[in-house]
């Protein structure tokens, strides 16, 4: 034992420690300072940054014993006398955040940097490079980097020193997030709460002969449950087997070690060429029952398909398919130069939201259940929990006030929820289960790897004559990938056939990831179109304009074509060590809506309150609702109280499929207008509101003016009429000596109609571009080919973009063409990322003459490609 005396946020503390503790755990668990977040646990991401004697320090790797005699400031102590630090104000005003989970760390470090900078250089702008260098120890998975850069630089210029008015920016909950008071699921701590851990398979494939929980209980577990499926077979390393709860994480972990798992190891299929995997053995899902239980990586229900061995498919879409096949075969035979064929591949990309999967379950003695979940779908998860545990839906409340990112990984009922609820039921105490970073990076969710063969044939006039696309997707044990199936939505009406196969392996399952299937499809299709433009000697934008009949995208082509960087691309340097190039890619996406969405707007305690069972994972749903309601009443959005993040509210949409804004925005407007009728026109004064205390109005999203593609709703989702569109133009610089690629500038044009909250929409679109840069250049999950274990189970080896990797970004909105949709606009979170990697690929081709086929385009691949 060792006694440590220090000052934390101005108050003296004496801590009695064992000596090995890390500071972040002492702050969060012992002192309740949960503004400091634990993310990577290895000093890479900076979410846990505090200052020790004024120096920013990653508290996850700082021994707490080192605090002796020091003065510590956490995010909670940054404001002085109730006034925010100028950097906190800057992050609010410039919107340097999305989900907010990395924000406390960024803010603490940036405050120290800005104070130091201004003391040395006065109120001058350090420029982006110096800011990125100072913040190199921080990662933001949402990639709110442009706002962070703007916030730090404007704070350096002294633009946020005025404390006479409250800090307000485009995001209504920003102050909570920059002060560390926003509570996430990982921050919940109830009386008597236990900590649960999941015992996972060490085998890629095994039959679990026996699970003996008793030794775990003897070793101190307060509760222990099995999590195996009925076939008692595990099919990937990390598959849940059991879970135990203890008084703290250490107790739970030692109890977990005592649990006996007898696994009969079986041969496993891991990696290898997916096209060859049909013949691999053993079969991952053998028999109809096993196939029915296969996890699904798609959001949409599956169309039945054939299985042969470890291959499922093809799921085929064709229009004069045989003619397409014949034309392409004949062109290949004749050596037709207007046939473009590419064989491309993409790697497994991992969501890794900075708030990991987390759940706190409280199962009281009655049949009522309260569950805090880090989820993108409070309403949907409540339904799933009720069904899974046989409870009436109204007895289940799912709560998620703030969600630290999701990107598609938090849409379903996953192991942490089942484990926490089961353990809580057994222990009759609250139980928290939080994935550690290794779990999050291994089994927390992924975008399947893909292997795509694409053939495009043009006729003498340069029109598209035939298209054939075949994708083999590797989503581990999961099925349902659609990549090639998205190809027919984009260009022309020529004969075409597209086929999607799933190839199975004993590796973790895929889950929906921002535009599922879209980025891999664009990587194939948009590079093939680019190659066709080269083949035909035509401008790539001009070719797309001929092939693409979409009016809204034509407006974007006009915009892209007029960009000075596009116009000047023929003058770029294409010799010497550093090569520069520009590439373009287009994309479109479906318009999804949850027509059952409801919003209630009421006057309560003199304030206007809007409620719905939606959630905000950083996409800005709260601000969209506040903005819609505020506009009707002519008040500031910050004066609307938005109640989301609880399944007790009226039916709300999931935050997935770019559906949230288009589902709740117009609905909030309609409900507000109904309430407006009740309380009358004119200024909304406190007296007027007091006179209507308790007045309530409710609206449901309902139908669009014209019919939808799907006349019925599946899983609260309808596909509406029209495609959202995007065009991306990227500029790259390539160091041909070291293979390093820098994406220097990106222009993103979006045709999604009217924009609800422009500042937040821009932030989403810029972040989508930066995530696209990660997909293009850095992100790759690596497996051990022998054991099937994930090797990139930390944020050093799994590489996500840093602030310094952000290109200079320009966003353009084409706001016309969506008059049939209430509110005049549709979702943008997915379409904004689909074509980014492809535009970078085309820029690399333009710069070097070499076309990258495999993602990510790592330095070694560049060196190999240019050799």
């Amino acid at each position: 034992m060792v006694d440590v005396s220090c000052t934390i946020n101005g108050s003296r503390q004496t801590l009695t420690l064992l000596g090995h503790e890390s500071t972040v755990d002492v702050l969060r668990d012992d002192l309740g300072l949960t503004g400091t977040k634990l993310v990577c646990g290895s000093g890479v991401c900076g979410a846990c940054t505090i200052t020790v004697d004024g120096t920013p320090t990653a508290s996850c790797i700082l021994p707490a014993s080192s605090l002796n005699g020091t003065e510590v400031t956490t995010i909670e102590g940054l404001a002085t006398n109730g006034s925010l630090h100028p950097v906190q104000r800057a992050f609010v005003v410039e919107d340097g955040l999305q989900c907010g989970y990395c924000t406390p760390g960024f803010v603490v470090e940036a405050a120290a940097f800005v104070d130091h900078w201004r003391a040395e250089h006065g109120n001058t702008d350090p420029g982006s490079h110096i800011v990125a260098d100072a913040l190199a120890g921080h990662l933001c998975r949402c990639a709110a980097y442009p706002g962070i850069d703007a916030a730090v630089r404007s704070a350096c210029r002294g633009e946020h020193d005025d404390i006479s008015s409250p800090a307000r920016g485009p995001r209504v909950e920003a102050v909570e997030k920059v002060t560390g008071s926003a509570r996430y699921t990982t921050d919940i701590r109830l009386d008597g709460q236990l900590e649960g851990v999941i015992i996972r398979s060490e085998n890629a494939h095994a039959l679990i002969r026996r699970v003996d929980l008793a030794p775990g209980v003897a070793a101190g577990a307060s509760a222990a449950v099995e999590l195996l499926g009925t076939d008692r077979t595990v099919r990937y390393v990390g598959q849940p087997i059991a879970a135990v709860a203890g008084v703290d994480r250490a107790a739970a972990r030692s109890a977990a070690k005592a649990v006996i798992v007898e696994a009969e190891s079986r041969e496993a299929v891991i990696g290898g060429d997916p096209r060859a995997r049909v013949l691999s053995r053993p079969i991952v899902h053998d028999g109809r029952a096993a196939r029915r239980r296969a996890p699904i990586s798609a959001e949409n229900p599956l169309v039945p398909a054939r299985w042969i061995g470890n291959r499922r498919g093809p799921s085929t879409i064709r229009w004069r398919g045989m003619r397409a096949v014949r034309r392409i075969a004949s062109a290949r035979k004749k050596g037709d130069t207007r046939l473009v064929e590419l064989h491309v591949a993409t790697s497994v990309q991992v969501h890794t939201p900075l708030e990991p999967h987390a759940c706190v379950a409280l199962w009281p003695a009655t049949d009522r259940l309260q569950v805090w979940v880090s989820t993108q779908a409070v309403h949907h998860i409540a339904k799933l929990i009720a069904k899974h545990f046989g409870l009436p839906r109204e007895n289940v409340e799912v709560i998620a006030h703030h969600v630290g990112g999701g990107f598609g990984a938090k849409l379903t009922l996953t192991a942490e929820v089942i484990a926490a609820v089961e353990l809580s039921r057994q222990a009759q105490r609250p139980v928290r289960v939080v994935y550690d970073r290794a779990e999050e990076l291994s089994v927390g969710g992924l975008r399947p790897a893909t292997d795509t063969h694409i053939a495009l044939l043009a006729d003498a006039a340069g029109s598209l004559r035939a298209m054939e696309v075949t994708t083999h997707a590797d989503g581990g044990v999961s099925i349902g990938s659609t990549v090639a199936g998205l190809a027919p939505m984009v260009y022309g009406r020529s004969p075409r056939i597209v086929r999607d196969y799933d190839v199975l392996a004993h590796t973790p399952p895929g889950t929906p990831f921002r535009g599922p299937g879209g980025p891999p499809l664009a990587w194939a299709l948009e590079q093939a179109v680019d190659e066709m433009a080269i083949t035909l000697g035509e401008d790539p934008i001009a070719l797309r304009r001929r092939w693409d009949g979409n009016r809204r995208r034509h407006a974007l082509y006009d915009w892209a074509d007029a960009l000075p960087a596009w116009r000047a691309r023929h003058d770029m340097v294409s010799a010497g060590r550093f090569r520069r190039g520009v590439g373009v890619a287009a994309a479109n996406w479906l318009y999804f809506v949850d027509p059952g969405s409801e919003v209630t707007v009421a006057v309560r305690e003199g304030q206007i309150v809007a409620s719905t069972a939606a959630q905000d994972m950083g996409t800005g749903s709260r601000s969209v609702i506040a903005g819609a309601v505020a506009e009707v009443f002519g008040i500031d959005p910050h004066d609307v109280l938005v109640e989301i993040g609880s399944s007790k509210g009226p039916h709300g949409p999931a935050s997935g499929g770019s559906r949230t804004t288009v589902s709740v925005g117009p609905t909030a407007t309609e409900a507000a207008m109904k309430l407006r009728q009740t309380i009358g026109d004119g200024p909304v004064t406190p007296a007027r509101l007091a006179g209507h205390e308790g007045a309530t109005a409710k609206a449901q999203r309902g139908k669009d003016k014209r019919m939808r593609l799907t006349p019925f709703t599946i899983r609260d989702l309808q596909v509406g009429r029209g495609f959202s569109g995007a065009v991306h133009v990227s500029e790259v610089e390539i160091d041909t000596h070291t293979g390093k690629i820098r994406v220097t500038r990106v222009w993103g044009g979006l045709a999604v109609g009217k924009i609800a909250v422009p500042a937040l929409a821009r932030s989403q679109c810029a972040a989508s571009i930066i995530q696209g840069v990660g997909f293009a250049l850095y992100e790759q999950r690596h497996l051990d080919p022998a054991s099937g274990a994930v090797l990139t189970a930390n944020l050093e080896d799994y590489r996500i973009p840093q602030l310094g990797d952000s290109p200079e970004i320009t966003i353009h909105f084409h706001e016309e063409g969506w008059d049939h949709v209430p509110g005049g606009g549709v979702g943008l979170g997915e379409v904004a990322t689909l074509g980014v990697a492809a535009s970078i690929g085309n820029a690399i081709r333009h710069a070097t003459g070499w076309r990258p086929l495999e993602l990510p385009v790592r330095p070694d691949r560049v060196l190999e490609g240019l050799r």
Partner: protein
Amino acid sequence: MTIITTFPENLDDASRSSDATSEFRLGGTDLQARLRRGTSSGRIVDLTRVPGLVGVRDLGPDGVEIGAATTIAAVASHPLVQTRYPALALTARGLATPQVRAVGSIGGNLLQKTRCWYLRGGHACFKSGGDTCPARTGNHLYGVAIDQGPCVAPHPSSIGAALLVYDTIIRTHTRSDRPVAELWGDGSDPTRDHLLGPDEIVTLVLLPRVPDGERGGYFRSISRFEAEWPLVEAVVRLHILDGRIKHAGVAVGGVANTPLRLPEVEQELLGELATDGLFESASRAADHRCRPLPQTGYKAALLGATISEALRRAAG
């Protein structure tokens, strides 16, 4: 497992508290991460209360000594290091993140465990008591290109490469001074991160006096902006007089089981006019050492490019 941490207040007690299963801790930047992952031994001997291990001291004609517990950030920003040993200052400035540099010590950097994703993922290997290297037969994309022995993980110490070019001496509290290269030997023992005994504690590093006006260069090849383990890194010191190279020191990291000094490259540089052309040709003199693994062939190409860029930066 109960983790026992002791806080000795002098070197002798520290030494006595240590055995083959314990680990010394200074900044703790790596040990705390491994504790969380459950891949540390569980006995910690914390050296932060041992006096006299911190600081940069000018020894005049005998050079400069740096206490083992001096932080990387303090080394990077020390005026004496910046003016006399610029390659060390640049290396210290270029590694890890600002937060790690603020806490991590120079001694800890020299003696740190390899970053191999198998070792850190809890796989059995030579360094965790096993008798195999799963990376050699498995995924070794970031492994060595100069194959010195059974373990294929590159040594992670950037500071080590910098100290090599300055002919640095290390001092431990029990044995006589020795060249820093002897910390690692030839890299053929796959079970060791360094060759110190379990009770041996590095107290300081001693950099001999260098001629005034020397230049330094550091470059790491990575895929992103910063804060990434090097694919290949190079440290260079140059003494250029009237355009000609009077003295050169070149060392590399990221390619072998130890940081490596490259006298053959230095030899190519000596007495020559400092030009980009010379840098490119001289930097290829180490190519003969490369025996890449199936997935690390690119590092052979990157080695010359990285050295050459470090040379350019030193001369520029």
